[in-house]
């Protein structure tokens, strides 16, 4: 391989990696936001992503909706599901030991996976081609129009989220609850409500990722959330769990590493190498890339 074709290949894998990574980032945001507020690793999050993909699937096939309305419907549906899961499964355990909540989360995850199998059969479904996929050639690089869509939608959602978290009253309340729940209460913040909204937002973002993946890979099934869920969780830890820009960075990095490994080494080796690299990064930065410990002065 001469150096120019190497560079070409590198750039191509970078493009693939960033679009895959932005999907991981969307999922990772839900992990990190929920962890930030109630210190729970919501193991059911990957399955909410799967449910989002199915809502998108039925919205396009049964209801005949276009891409954007289907995406919106999936986001709203998953948002409500997320709020419901929090209300029914996690809130009653707010003061229970961590391990009880963690086991409940695994239970919710299994419930969603096998409940979906019962409801929609374990058979993979072919996601309809709601958008044509046209390769766009730039120089020697090929960008799929669907990759552009993935990037565009993810970027848009992340910009909106960043705005909401930094500049709106709800966003400030979320950050306050995340930093110090008791004091947030003293400010007059209804903590339960804020936690509920946090689940809604995180779940909606995961659903968007689910629909995008459906559009991109054409195939969805009830267990599709397990691997991306796991990777997005690692991405959130890599970026610094609880830190929103960290989840975005971690997700994109995860996607890029994965694409580079499968492009240059081997795609069977992809996950092992990706996780290996992440472990090495975490050895040097245990709090994650953007994770920091601000201590209060007393």
């Amino acid at each position, binding site marked *: 391989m001469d150096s120019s074709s190497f560079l070409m290949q590198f750039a191509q894998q970078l493009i693939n990696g960033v679009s895959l990574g932005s999907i991981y980032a969307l999922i990772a945001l839900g992990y990190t936001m929920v962890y930030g507020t109630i210190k729970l690793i919501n193991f059911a999050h990957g399955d909410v992503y799967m449910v989002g993909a199915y809502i998108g699937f039925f919205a396009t096939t049964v209801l005949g909706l276009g891409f954007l309305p289907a995406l919106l419907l999936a986001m709203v549906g998953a948002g409500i599901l997320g709020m419901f899961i929090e209300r029914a499964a996690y809130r009653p355990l707010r003061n229970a030991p961590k391990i009880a909540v963690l086991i409940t989360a695994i239970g919710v995850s299994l419930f969603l996976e096998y409940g979906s199998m019962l409801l929609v059969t374990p058979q993979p479904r072919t996601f309809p081609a709601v958008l044509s996929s046209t390769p766009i050639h730039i120089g020697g690089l090929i960008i799929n129009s669907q990759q552009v869509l993935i990037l565009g939608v993810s970027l848009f959602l992340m910009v909106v989220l960043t705005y909401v978290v930094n500049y709106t009253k709800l966003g400030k309340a979320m950050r306050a609850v995340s930093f110090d729940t*008791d004091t947030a209460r003293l*400010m007059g913040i209804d903590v339960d409500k804020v936690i509920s909204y946090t689940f809604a937002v995180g779940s909606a973002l995961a659903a968007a990722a689910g629909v995008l993946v459906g559009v991109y890979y054409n195939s969805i099934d009830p267990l599709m959330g397990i691997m991306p869920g796991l990777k997005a969780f690692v991405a959130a830890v890599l970026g610094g769990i609880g830190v929103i820009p960290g989840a975005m960075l971690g997700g994109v990095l995860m996607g890029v590493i994965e694409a580079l490994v499968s492009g240059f080494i081997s795609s069977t080796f992809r996950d092992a190498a990706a996780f290996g690299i992440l472990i090495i990064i975490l050895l040097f930065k245990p709090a994650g890339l953007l994770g920091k410990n601000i201590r*209060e002065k007393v």
Partner: protein
Amino acid sequence: MLLVENINVYYGAIHALKGVSVEVKEGEIVTLIGANGAGKSTTLRTISGMLKPKTGKILFEGQDIAGMAAQNIVKLGLSQVPEGRRIFANMSVLENLELGAYIRNDSKEIKEDLEKIFKRFPRLAERKTQMAGTLSGGEQQMLAMGRAMMSRPRILLLDEPSMGLAPLLVKEIFSIIQDINATGTTILLVEQNAHMALSIAHKAYVLETGRISLSGTAKELAASEEVRKAYLGA
């Protein structure tokens, strides 16, 4: 204005408050003094809804607020500056103050109140966009007080505002408390610095291992032999 009647508060099996009663009348500064672990913070946290008393009443302007959710008590006009300031360290000074006004929706008046706070605490005005966690201890105390004032409370509960501050700053903080009181806010002040607290308060209570052991006007208590020995080092 605030009437705490015979409350009993437990942490699991620990009986932290044993029939505590406190009365604060409109316009007063009332102080609650006592040694470490006497139950001062527990009393304030129970009033502001962070803890639920097992028995007893807490009447705020006639309404029983015992066991009411903390966020709803703030809306009634009762605000607390918690022990250790508890500012939101990862947010700017301005954002901290805005969170203080969380229960309000009158954005124009919130702006005016912000100006008032910045006038009262010029050091905060200079540091509006600074991360609150990088403020000095005294500045953090001012921020915590400013934040509590942003909800326009009718009564302000302060938990050891002098903690960890140099004598000069303690004086400044206490004169600000007097000033806040003079502009119409009733104050319930918890302090270990009994000398300073008694010097600005109208009325005082002494808390000893979960019980009120003494009460009276601040003058009476400052003159009493017991208080002088135990709390004023005389």
